[in-house]
């Protein structure tokens, strides 16, 4: 339990990532159809994601997911827990 908590401290949501930053998906905090959609697009736990660009109005943000560029609204991206990768 202790270990898990300390691990979670490093975690952020996808919405909090800066443009150009890379991260690995930890878990999806959504259920039902939305979850299926995300999974179908290849956004599964363990997948590496890169933030590509943000709309001039702040939302949505586009991410590189397995080679394709997909845009998610901030509220949807904030339901995806990721671990930032630093290189």
């Amino acid at each position, binding site marked *: 339990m202790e270990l898990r908590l300390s691990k979670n401290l490093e975690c952020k949501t996808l919405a909090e990532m800066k443009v150009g930053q890379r991260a690995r998906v930890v878990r999806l905090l*959504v259920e039902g*159809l*939305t*979850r*299926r*959609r*995300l*999974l*179908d*697009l*290849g956004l*599964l*736990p363990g*997948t590496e994601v890169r933030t*590509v*660009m*943000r*709309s*001039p*109005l*702040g*939302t*949505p943000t*586009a991410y590189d*997911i*397995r*080679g*394709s*560029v*997909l*845009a*998610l*609204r901030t509220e*949807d991206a904030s339901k995806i827990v990721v671990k930032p990768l630093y290189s």
Partner: protein
Amino acid sequence: MMKDGINVDTKGEGHDYYQERHEDLEKGHDYLVALAGNPNTGKSTVFNAFTGLRQHVGNWPGKTVARAEGSFKYMGKRYKLIDLPGTYSLLATATDEEIARNFLLFSRPDVVVVVVDSATLERNLNLVLQVLEISNHVVVCLNLVDEAARKGMNVDAEQLSLDLGVPVVPTVANVGKGLNDLVKAIAGVASRTIPTSPRHFALKSDIRKAVDEVIPHVKKVVGDLPNIRWIAMRLLEGDARIRETLDKGELASLISSNQDVSAVATPTKAELKELFDRVQIAASSIRESLHDYVVSSIYADAETIWSKAVTKAEVPKSDLDAKIDRILTSRIIGFPIMIALMIAVFWITIEGANVPSQLLADGLFWLEDQFTSLFRWFGAPQWLEGLLVHGTYRGLAWVVSVMLPPMAIFFPLFTLLEDLGYLPRVAFNIDRFFKWAGTHGKQAITMCMGFGCNATGVISCRSINSPRERLIAILTNNFVPCNGRWPTLILVAAVFVATAFPPAISSMIASFTIVAVTFIGILTTFIVSALLSRTLLKGESSFFVLEMPSYRRPQFLRVLYTSFIDRTIKVLYRAIIWAAPAGALIWILGNVYVGGETLMIHAADVLSPIGLLIGLDGIILLAYIIAIPANEIIIPTIIMGYMGTSMMTELESTVELHALFVAQGFTVITAICLMLFSVLHYPCATTTHTIWKETRSAKWTLLSNLIPLAVAFLVCFVVAQSLRALGFS
């Protein structure tokens, strides 16, 4: 082909698909080929390349999802090609995915061609692996290999083929590269001379156990199908559609028509019950979500296959797409570029359409004179000549000469932007407004379509999955002005705005005015959408993913073809059908006298008080009622009403027109209100008909007319009264 004594539910969808296959084969197609693939993979390009003009576009039975089918011949065999809806998966519950899946399952095509995008191969393999579970006879079309190469990726087709167990053909479909090899592979798999042994993805032990437990019971019910493992997995996941199919015995009847009927017995109630019980027991033994697990198994496999087949350049090539995106979605110049492009498109359309419009008008009106002479030579009665030549024909001539040139310029320009991949960037830039309005981000794209034609825009709302958000997009599409309304906007802008400026910049000024009015329309879209989201169609915006495809060099021939055949000609055809009777009506109104005045003057007198209240006048309002079928004839009808002539006429110069309008009490307020009314008022008859076809609801079709009407009246009233109060006249 149907055997007696088999219980087939004729209302079941599965049965329709099944029936279709056999009818087609009886009609003389040797092989049935299905085309599957993710969106944006060039699937339609492959489809068009094979079928050319031998294609037919309709809807899937009972669904508002477009369905294209076509045929081609190769080595003496006839192939029927069905273009399945573009999907990322066959697992989720969206309508298009269900259609694709049902077709593969029930129509049992001889070959399934999966078109994949080489540049995003890993994600595309998700669909390929799912198709391999359902169908044995698959060919993978590895499309857009040039784009992958541009991004520094090389895909080893042979390695891929080895891993998938089916032929893999690299292609660049938009230039026709590799299509010969593709058709050879299709023919080989169809005739079964090229053997296939499709890969089935690996399952984790506890799930494999559950699946293995269920399989023998499925076999008892449906016989030994190639996709038995897939059916077992679907049952374990609780797929209601598959269960229903088994309940009705449809799956069994499929096999029995292909094989010896005695080999498969129709399942008994007891057998079915046992199967479903077994499924329930087995499903309860799986702890984690089966769907999550299946998808992660597929992607794990996809990752392995992908990493074996794809080699990436050591130094990644400079990413041109990313550079363009940074400019087009830039915080500072993203919006200015968008607006500049819009002005440019309008400006090119207005400038370019002038001369051809005039030529067409001259030609068509010359033809009218010939018709007149012909009628007189025959000694036809005056009223007949008037009704047919000066009414119906002239109405048609107007619509063609006013509409055809701008459409023939606008649609190719628009298709060009679409093909380049710009529209998703527009949606990306302005999505926040839709989020605020509580609607779907793809509404931006349907709105762009509406600029061409609102009926087309309404149809494009199909891409929105949530029924609530789709309905809002349909109801508000009309607030973006379509091609039919531009003549009005262009003329009023040219006569009352541009004439105040030097000729060198006048068409630029007119473009600015039109863009300004368009922005009012877009603003109204957001406001009405937001109001609907908070009242009649309450709800939050649903989850939405927008794919930003790579920029692609457009194929000019295809652009011309799509915009001419699919858009220009179709829209024009509809307009003509509606404009002809309207032309006849206008002639009758202008030529039937009651108490010394024409019907038109009487009607205008009645409408005049309401018209004046909202800054218009009786004639303009009457023109809008007559022009419900086709907005293009607004201006000619107004001119005719003002001049008191008995037929629609066109005046030579804007100066003359200006003088005529002013003499009738037309002011700056009238001009402003006319433009606003044109953008905001109810949709044309074609669009209303389309809304009815798309919604099948009298209530929403009625509201789609009443809401814009109320908005138009309100806005024009407020604007007219405020301007008058401020001392304008």
